[in-house]
């Protein structure tokens, strides 16, 4: 997992999976790097093969820690169709901006 902090833009990429195995680490590392004031957080899911409920929980925790997305714009980039389906099934797509680039 790679985290780049570009001022007001935080980009998280190279996430092969977001599951019980690494969701704790994701929460800690992304939580620590969150912009203190307003900004944009982009989670690049283009390389993500698998997300389970722990991964969804980590994303939801991120949403909560940014004041329910009020302070920070949260974007999920390029999720695979099946992961997009999982977001729709769990209604996570209503919390995040999902962008295909």
């Amino acid at each position, binding site marked *: 997992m790679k985290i780049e902090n570009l001022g007001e833009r935080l980009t998280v990429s190279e996430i092969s999976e977001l599951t019980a195995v690494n969701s704790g680490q994701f929460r800690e590392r992304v939580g620590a790097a969150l912009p203190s004031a307003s900004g944009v957080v982009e989670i690049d899911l283009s390389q993500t093969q*698998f*997300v*389970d*409920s722990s991964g969804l929980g980590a994303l939801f925790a991120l949403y909560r820690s940014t004041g329910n997305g009020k302070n920070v714009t949260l974007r999920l980039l390029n999720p695979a*169709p*099946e*992961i*997009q*389906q*999982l977001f*729709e*099934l*769990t*209604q996570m797509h209503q919390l995040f901006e999902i962008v295909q680039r």
Partner: protein
Amino acid sequence: MKTLLICPARRPAVPLLAEDRPLAALPILGEALVAHWVEHVAGLGAKEVRIVAPDRADAIRAIVGDGGRWGVRIEIIAAAAESSATEAASRYRSTDEPGWLPHPHDFIVMNHLPGATGSNLFESYAGWFSGVRNWMPRAITPARVRMNEIRPGVWVSRRARVHPSAQLNAPCWVGDQAYVGRGAVVGPGAVIEDRAVVEQGATVIQSVVTPDTYVGKLTAVANSLAMGQTLINWKSGSSLRVPDPFLMTSLARKPKATARRARQAVGAALGAFLPLNLLRTWNYRLSGRTSSLKPPI
């Protein structure tokens, strides 16, 4: 009168539909596709129905039996590949054989529902969904006493359990022994098949939930076919194996064959273990010496 029904073989456009059962055995509003067809041809006066099954003939036989339920006699013919109606006519009917239903009811490929020749169920997942949704107003027959149209376009089985706060938006169908929980939204365009469970706060719109499928609390199934753990978006064709059973899963009991195989595996393991243990006991007693190992039970 005679007729011949041809079951569709697996179709590349809809591989997931045929994963657990042959396409002709897929449930549509409480009945398998093949059962809808047998009922239809029986209504046309057929007394002898031959069914050509290129895929898992036993599953078809388990559904239709000997045909007594419809007052017809059924013969299942297992075939290696699917035939077209023309091929079947030349293969299964001798030229001078009388007593067949008139064309086109004599040889029928079951890739659509009766009377819906324009809509091919197996050309895409969207075709399947559209066929099932459009069949709702036609699925009630005099024999189906359990289904009840509680208001226009809303069909609910008398044995379904629907929480008073659940919203049922027409057109929708809630099958036998299905459950719709508190605050759930079903429809428009939703089919909840027999024994399916739609939990509290869940939403099912423009979708089919197949029999024995559990849809968890607050989940949203839209433009999809929910089949056990498999979720297929019929618009995009993408599919997902849902990773967590509390979101979506199958409630169906494992087939007996699987249980039998499991028992056989346990039996084989015990069989391998017990002689070894008996041998150890025998050695222990014969040698009469103290072993550092505890004596076997």
